[in-house]
């Protein structure tokens, strides 16, 4: 018998899509049964209470969670989000219900061995409820009490060789797309640099020295499967400088209907015979392609590496060999000043161990932001406030037309004194030539 009736939530058990309610219920039942005799370190019925408080929110149309307050592990500024229920008498199992962020492995590959161990730990010391994964990328353990935080951290570091992820005003857990590990489009090894920088910047990750949060995300190519361009203070997006490699035979295979376009992504509808002109050349944003005499020609100088043609004909077209990434900066959610996507700062940079050139850019940005950023001001907002020029100046990057989609249309140029031969002038001298 469930501890709380959940008539509203129960309606979310039907329908084909996996029901989180059913899953929570199975967990609640499993904890109630406790076949393995786990010595639960948080209330055994916490999942019941979680269902109960959620049901109450469904009834009231509002949340029943309060502000977190500052909880965490000693010496770390992040990794834990404190959370308390505003109905602790009714739902004592979730009265304290903090989350922990566990730094996920690159591209979220797991062995079952590791995962199962995590499950054991979390069942024992927490609610057994998780998010696989949080929006930033972490493994999220939802629901434990304050005393368990250090215990879990101890076990993780000692028995799992595993650290917490980020929260608060620090570097957040970096994350990456699957990249070259399983994707033919990847222009660099996303996992390698993601891991290297995560390790390099452990201090920034765990000990807040920043005005606000800061995020890295690594996309192997402009398809942006980890959405870096929309949600990372620095987005690393793979690209290349030389030519797209063309296998004309495979092109013919597509034209002839031998291969399904776009790897079969459109198989659910009859779109008619593949038309390379209409589906590839005409849709190329720069119109730098031609299919002529049975050959596909690309004017690579004009190509902006949008990936479309390669996506449509993955067997025939391959990314170039002179690979690296573009770095874009400032993406963030709407609060406070409006959402931003990343703005291109470094058009092309090699992604090679030990990533020194890249680190230089990162650190120059941080120096500036830590110096000038206001409390709770994201990098993107600082760039807006002080200007893109200032960013270039502070990172010592030469302005190039690639930095802009278009040049300014207002002529309000803030000239500096040393650019115009000084501002000091004498009114009396002026008046000699110009009477009042």
């Amino acid at each position, binding site marked *: 018998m469930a501890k709380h009736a959940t008539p*509203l939530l*129960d309606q*979310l058990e039907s*329908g084909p*899509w*996996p*029901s989180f*309610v059913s899953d*929570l219920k*199975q*967990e609640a039942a499993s904890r109630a049964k406790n076949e393995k005799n786990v010595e*639960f370190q948080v209330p055994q019925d916490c999942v019941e209470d979680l269902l109960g408080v*959620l049901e109450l*929110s469904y009834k009231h*149309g509002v*949340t029943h969670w309060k502000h977190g307050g500052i909880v965490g592990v000693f010496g*770390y500024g992040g990794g834990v989000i404190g959370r308390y229920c505003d109905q602790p008498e009714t739902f004592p199992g979730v009265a304290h219900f903090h989350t922990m962020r566990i730094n996920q*492995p*690159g591209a*979220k*590959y*797991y062995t*079952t061995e590791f*995962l199962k161990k995590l*499950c054991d730990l979390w069942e024992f010391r927490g609610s*057994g409820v*998780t998010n696989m*994964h949080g*929006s930033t990328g972490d493994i999220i353990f*939802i629901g434990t009490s304050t005393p368990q935080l*250090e215990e879990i951290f101890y076990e993780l*570091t000692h028995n799992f*060789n595993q*650290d917490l992820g980020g929260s608060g005003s620090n570097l957040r857990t970096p994350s990456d797309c699957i990249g070259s590990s399983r*994707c*033919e489009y*990847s222009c660099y090894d996303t996992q*390698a640099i993601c*891991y290297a920088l995560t390790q390099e910047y*452990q201090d920034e*990750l*765990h000990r807040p020295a920043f005005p606000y949060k800061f995020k890295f995300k690594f996309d192997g190519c*402009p398809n*942006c499967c980890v959405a870096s361009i929309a*949600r990372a203070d620095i987005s690393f997006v793979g690209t290349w400088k030389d030519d797209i490699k063309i296998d004309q035979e495979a092109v013919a295979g597509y034209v002839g209907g031998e291969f*399904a376009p776009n*790897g*079969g*992504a459109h*198989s*659910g*509808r009859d779109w008619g015979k593949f038309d390379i002109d209409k589906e590839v050349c005409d849709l190329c*944003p720069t119109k730098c392609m031609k299919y002529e005499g049975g050959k596909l020609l690309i004017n690579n100088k004009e190509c902006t590496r*949008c990936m479309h043609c390669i996506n449509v004909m993955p*067997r025939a077209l391959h990314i170039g060999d002179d690979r690296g990434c573009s770095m874009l900066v400032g993406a963030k*959610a709407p609060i*406070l000043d*409006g*959402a931003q*996507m990343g703005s291109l700062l470094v058009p092309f940079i090699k992604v090679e161990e030990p990533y020194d050139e890249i680190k230089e850019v990162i650190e120059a940005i941080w120096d500036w932001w830590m110096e000038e950023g206001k409390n709770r001001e994201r990098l993107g907002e600082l760039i807006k406030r002080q200007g893109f020029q200032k960013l270039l100046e502070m990172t010592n990057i030469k302005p190039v037309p690639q930095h802009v989609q278009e040049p300014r249309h207002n002529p309000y140029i803030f000239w500096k004194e040393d650019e115009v031969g000084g501002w000091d002038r004498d009114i009396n001298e002026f008046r000699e030539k110009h009477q009042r």
Partner: protein
Amino acid sequence: MAFISSGYNPDKPMENRITDIGPQKYDKFYPPVIAKNKGKWLYHEIIKPGVLVHVAESGDECYTVRVGGARLMTVTHIREICEIADKHCDGHLRFTTRNNIEFMVDSKDKVEPLIQDLESRKFEGGSYKFPVGGTGAGVTNIIHTQGWIHCHTPATDASGPVKATMDVLFDDFKDHRLPAQLRVSLACCLNMCGAVHCSDIAILGYHRKPPLLDHEYLDKMCEIPLAIAACPTAAIKPAKVKFGEAELKSVAVNNDRCMFCGNCYTMCPSMPLADQEGDGIVIMVGGKVSNRISTPKFSKVVVAFIPNEPPRWESTTACIKKIVEAYSAGANKYERVGDWAERIGWERFFDKTELEFTHHLIDDFRDPAYYTWRQSTQFKF
């Protein structure tokens, strides 16, 4: 419930302390076929919805079966995932950036048994545990946030609307009939924990009532200057308030300037916004992240408000379904929702989706608003 120590000694927190070790190294978890062929993949193909094959230079193949699911998952569920991976995939698996699970096998004959196993598993309530799909020109899992399950600022739930929406879009999770991929995301408040602002369809929780003021506790619990500074529209001012006999330091809110962002509440628990009548959902449309063909785009607000309707948010899901169908009927092959709307013009978008255009959809936020109005005589009747 006896407290069991891990070995941690609260009196000597630094004893044996290990810190700053970061995550596990990625390559420890690679399945063998991945480890071997990393960086040498030649091409891929989606054999059918949810099933990919990647072919390497070596000739090796990696078959991936992608399954959807609630990312809010319990250890019981994860153990079941592990059981499957142990059975079919030599103990390897991964999660995608959109919270799907990928089971990888290294030969074709292992695919069908795996799929059959996956599709056969259902929860007691009747829903699939591991529906296969989420690839290609279809709908994949909904990126979402905490909602009423854990956060203190939401204006709607997350897991509930996601379940309701995915039930309605389920066929498209398992199909490739759409003109291009269609990404749905949900954020339960303006903080937008996720790439919701750049989604084909975004479901956004939004408050519509200014904060309540818990004067009695405001000064006690909050740093008033921080709350004031947090407000992007400068709607908050310090104020003295009579409370019984006492005069308390508190704040006053100019309600007409409030845009219900909840920033003040983030800084100060004595300024709650949540309200059953005020809270609900905003629908945004036409954003994207990829640089394919067109450059990344923000999503645009097309429905200013839909009330919260737990447990199934019928009006929200109906609205989304309508948009998906209009898009499916109208867009060209490879055309994302936003590209379609721009090609036909937003005036046509409202015709085709039968959504009502209201004044709320006209931008009035600061200077850039101007650039969204129409500075041209080019429009469709």
